[in-house]
């Protein structure tokens, strides 16, 4: 499903560079990505999502070579095929929880906002335990609740690829497992693929596979780090 070949990427003329000769994740597979801070885990997710483009090599999702698409095509591909749970939640303060979950539908013509989508969003929020907070401003939520709202937003369009950057980082142990199960459930239900960056080694046994970034040549040239 996700296929990376001879990838080379660098930030700001050599301050940081990442090389991945070969990396593949099968359809339906749930892979945890671990590694020290600054080793390029988030960069990998950004490359898969098409937010960043490699200097060399290719990144493919299914039959689509994401790295070969134009900027516009990569955006369209991302919003319809990739569910991204950002490390900093990336919720908008001025929207309530429901509007944040529905936000991708309001900023693109590629996704159509219907009554069914609204119902699905409410159901997803209930499953995540924030069903009673849909009308609350996102600023009124706790860190954990924000994280769950961000996950709802990522899962709502039934993406083919779910990229989670520390998706359970702000949750208590009980909720971590619960959210992880929901992510897994979504992956299984929609035959998607999960690539999750985590520092939480307790969660690793739940994944199908663990990709250790120390195995790659994620390097910080001249002491620099990946942003």
């Amino acid at each position, binding site marked *: 499903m996700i296929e990376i070949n001879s990838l080379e990427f660098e930030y700001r003329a050599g301050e940081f560079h990442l090389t991945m000769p070969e990396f593949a994740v099968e359809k339906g597979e749930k892979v945890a990505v671990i590694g020290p801070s600054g080793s390029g885990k988030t960069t990998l997710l950004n490359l898969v999502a098409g937010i960043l483009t490699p200097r060399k090599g290719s990144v493919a999702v299914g039959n689509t070579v994401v790295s070969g698409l134009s900027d516009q095509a990569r955006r369209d591909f991302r919003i319809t095929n990739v569910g991204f749970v950002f490390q900093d939640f990336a919720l908008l303060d001025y929207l309530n929880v429901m509007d944040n979950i529905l936000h991708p539908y309001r900023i693109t013509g590629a996704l159509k906002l219907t009554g069914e989508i609204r119902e699905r969003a409410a159901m997803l929020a209930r499953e995540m335990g924030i069903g009673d907070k849909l009308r609350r*401003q996102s600023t009124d939520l706790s860190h954990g609740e924000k994280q769950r709202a961000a996950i709802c937003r990522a899962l709502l369009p039934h993406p083919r690829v779910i990229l989670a950057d520390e998706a359970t980082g702000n949750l208590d142990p009980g909720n971590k497992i619960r959210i992880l199960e929901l992510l897994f459930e979504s992956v299984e239900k929609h035959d998607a693929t999960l690539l999750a960056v985590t520092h939480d080694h307790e969660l690793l046994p739940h994944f199908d596979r663990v990709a250790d970034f120390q195995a790659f040549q994620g390097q910080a040239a001249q002491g620099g780090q990946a942003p």
Partner: protein
Amino acid sequence: MMDSLYIAWKYLTYNKVKTATLVACIVLIAFLPMALELLLDESERQLLSRAVSTPLVVGAKGSALDLVMNTIYFGDEVPEIITMAAAEKIYESDLALPVPLYVRFQARKHPIVGTTLDYFDFRGLTLATGESITMLGDCVLGATAADRLDLNVGESIVSSPENLFDLAGVYPLKMKVVGILDKTHTSDDLAIFVDLKTTYVIQGLVHGHTDLWKVRDPTLILNKDDKNITGSAKVYEYTEITEDNIEEFHYHGDPTAAPITAVIALPFDEKSGTILRGRYLTDEENHQIVKPAEVINTLLASIFRIKNVLDAVIVIVGLGTVIAIILVFALSLRLRQREIVTIFKIGCRQMTIARLIAAEILIIVGFSAIICLVLLAFVNHYDDSLVRTLFIR
């Protein structure tokens, strides 16, 4: 676009203070010049139309502007008082018809205009209801005055005292409303018209009281001989003129010395007007004769000079405001960098950001336009009163 408007609306309502400030800036900068233009147009229309239709005004030497404003717009500023002799002089010249005016008193903030019936003919004033002034104490109301004072024919209005602390001063006079004029959209609509003698009653020059020769109470008499009798302060003066007491009203003094504020001179032809004007050019003459249109044109020229300065100020302030608004949006974009990056990361197109900003601008400008229109409608509705307050008083 609806989604962009929705998100923009949410952003703007969340940032209420910023939005309100931007709207207020735009409203002020758009409303001020438009309202000013509206008021100046209205003031020009009001001032000129009436001034042009008033050929000549005779009054005491002094401020020609005060004289004209008081005579044709019944302004608050009372010019120096002249006497009926000025009207007599015009009448005797056989060059013009004099219409004396005494505009000094008020009733519930509406000017009481003491004049003769010639004034009604000259202005073409017609009665909507009731009849014309026939008796001392009668009054005819302008349409707006009747409306604002909520008075109808048969009801009464009391004149306002000039000075509350003048214990020896005139008593308020209760005047009977005998007619209401048709609307003319001029200062006449706001006036309370009475006969000149009624204004003298208000002033105390004409007064009515019990016949002192017939009273029996000795405390009412100060002095008495075969020919003269002097009443004490205890003598009750009538504050309302009725059919029963009208005979008791009398004037002390020389009728030609009766006070007036101005005389409108209606020349019989252009030549008469020119001759009449010439007669007031001598240094010995203590009256002035003015052509209201000339006085008002001078005033308007001053107003428009001020307007030009104001326009320049508004343009500069407007430019400053526009720059400030652009700066606010630019800073806002910087502050919203994280949000923009998020939206890009989710996968929206670059145009979406432009559309969101455009939607925000559209809403702000739209709201400002609505508020501006409401304010302009208000100014338009009350332009008559506003012009009076700002330019005439």
